[in-house]
């Protein structure tokens, strides 16, 4: 399973199909989030009332960070686990969570992943071992346990644990890396450095330029991917996943990525000095240009990928809207088994 990963380490060797697959994942994710964005804001007016509308509550979108999820999850199968954060959509999608129950959960419907109990920060999909948590850094430890179970059962499945750069200053981060390193658990730790923890800049929270340097505190390899480039992520993750599957223990990867939109919807981002340059850094047009230059993509293929994504996403949104709202009489269900 890990044999040809090192051969793929350099992006020039990626096949056209693989590059299209990476691009497609990014497009599926972006298309989904654009639809959620549209639905989320559709019925919050006049003014903006966070609790109103078909999708209420906080909404943390991952647009701009698709390269991380796409590059990492391309190495995984549904037997592997991913634990994510309050900003989970891109990883859920890249890891293969079915968009229909995922959308239905975001709409709070009975056909949702959590039958409407969880919401967008609490997506649990046993069939792909996907989960997330809204408490910063506290999704990390569960990945250790999943990895522990996989290795006790003798499978070569691994767990990927994702957080933002802000989370790397939380105690759970430290305890998790130490324990995973100590027990050589098959985990890949991924930090998405999007430069911001809500309104607090990376510089205002972290005294060193690269969290990859923190890997040394646990005796494990650490890499920082400086470009928000799916192929660079793919290469770094390939090594890390192979190491984990091969019994070599955990790796820490930090990717310098981009929060294209606000921390959550409704965030005016007044604190963000570089706000007008942000759209230019969108990784999707950049990657599309690369693939066009390389002859992997043309108008027709691009259109095909986009329209397939759009059909799938709108199908998921329609599925969600058609699903029933939970019956208040069932409010006490699912506390104990």
């Amino acid at each position, binding site marked *: 399973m890990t044999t040809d990963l090192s051969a793929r380490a350099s992006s020039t060797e990626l096949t056209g199909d693989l590059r299209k697959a990476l691009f497609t994942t990014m497009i599926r994710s972006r298309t989904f989030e654009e639809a959620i964005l549209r639905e989320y804001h559709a019925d919050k007016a006049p003014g903006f009332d966070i609790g109103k509308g078909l999708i209420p509550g906080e909404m943390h979108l991952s647009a701009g960070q698709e390269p991380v999820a796409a590059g990492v999850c391309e190495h995984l199968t549904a037997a592997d686990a991913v634990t994510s954060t309050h900003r989970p959509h891109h990883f859920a999608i890249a890891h293969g969570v079915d968009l229909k129950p995922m959308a239905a959960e975001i709409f709070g419907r009975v056909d949702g992943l959590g039958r409407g*109990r969880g919401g967008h920060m609490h997506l649990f999909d046993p069939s792909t071992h996907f989960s997330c948590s809204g408490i910063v850094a506290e999704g990390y430890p569960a990945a250790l346990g999943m990895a522990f179970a996989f290795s006790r059962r003798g499978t070569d499945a691994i767990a990927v644990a994702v957080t933002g750069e802000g989370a790397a200053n939380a105690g759970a981060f430290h305890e998790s890396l130490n324990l995973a390193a100590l027990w050589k658990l098959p985990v890949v730790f991924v930090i998405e450095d999007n430069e911001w923890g809500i309104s607090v800049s990376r510089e205002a929270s972290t005294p060193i330029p690269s969290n990859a340097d923190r890997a040394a505190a646990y005796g494990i390899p650490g890499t920082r991917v400086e470009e928000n480039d799916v192929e660079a992520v793919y290469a770094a993750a390939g090594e890390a996943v192979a190491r984990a599957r091969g019994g070599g223990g955990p790796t820490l990867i930090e990717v310098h990525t981009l929060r294209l939109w606000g921390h959550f919807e409704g965030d005016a981002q007044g604190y963000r000095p570089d706000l007008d340059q942000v759209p230019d850094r969108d990784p999707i047009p950049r990657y599309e240009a690369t693939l066009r230059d390389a002859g992997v993509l043309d108008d027709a293929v691009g259109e095909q990928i986009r329209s397939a994504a759009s059909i799938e996403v709108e199908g998921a949104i329609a599925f969600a809207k058609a699903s029933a709202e939970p019956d208040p009489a069932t409010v006490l269900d699912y506390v104990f088994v």
Partner: protein
Amino acid sequence: MTVTDRPAQAPTRRLNTSKAMVEAIAAEMEANPEVFYLGEDVGAYGGIFSSTTGLLDRFGPQRVLDTPISETGFIGLAIGAATEGMRPIVELMFADFMGVCLDQIYNHMAKIHFESGGNVKVPMVLTTAVGGGYSDGAQHSQCLWGTFAHLPGMKVVAPATPADAKGLMTAAIRDDSPVVYMFHKGVMGLPWMVKNPRSIDVVPAGEHVVEIGKARVAREGSDVTIVTISLSVHHALDVAEQLSNEGISAEVIDLRSLVPLDRDAICASVAKTGRLVVVDEDYLSFGMSAEVVASVTDRDPSLFKAPPVRVAVPDIPIPYARPLEYAALPRQDRIEEAVRKALR
């Protein structure tokens, strides 16, 4: 002691709760250089729920500090600074996050004074946002004041009105004991969240102190007592107003603080009405609702002419979907039903 001091300003100056709270913080920071505020997104952002709007501009980054996401670290920092005589105000963004830093709060902030035999004081305020009602899910909608109130050594306040938000904050900052100040998102009067009209109200200008530990009779009544706190005070008043059309006279007691708990006020009202409804947006069991009931039975269970009724979040995590969340929260419908039940 309630010093209400309204010099030049019109007596009808109305503020939302967040502005009232910030006004108190700003006045105390002005008056005392040892007061400072720290927490996540309390600087340029002004607090996710507008708990610190404008403070950074006014007092600068030396006294209004954005922190890393390290609640144990920075709450512990506040505790250490308080033991050295500073008067920190430290914000835990959501009470739901207490689990990552409760040790500092309950084993340190709340115990050092006692363990030191009174030799060390810990004069600080821990502010935190509580409450649901806007579909923020099981990890961002909790009140949890029952948890804080169960653990000794900290005062626990939760204002319902703008005036109390100011007066209790002033008192909390001046208190030489640690005070947990829980502000409900739904009482802040935020422009982007549904709000009860009572979250914008008259706030005394100038110094305004509300003594911690004294409940407020939010509405007088004679048939039934509704004891509650924070946002649920507004809901209870809605219900009381509505039921008055039917000739039902409900007294509404706003506890204002769980620690100290004004047991006298509870008992006095129940002695008058004989009927009690407790409304608590925290979880039902092992929390505020039972403690209020026991405050009465400790003295005299025969004060109850009927079983007291507890309206709280049943013992489930707070659900995301609106119909479920509304069924779980103690909203007007459930309060009204409870009052009718208490009167049967």
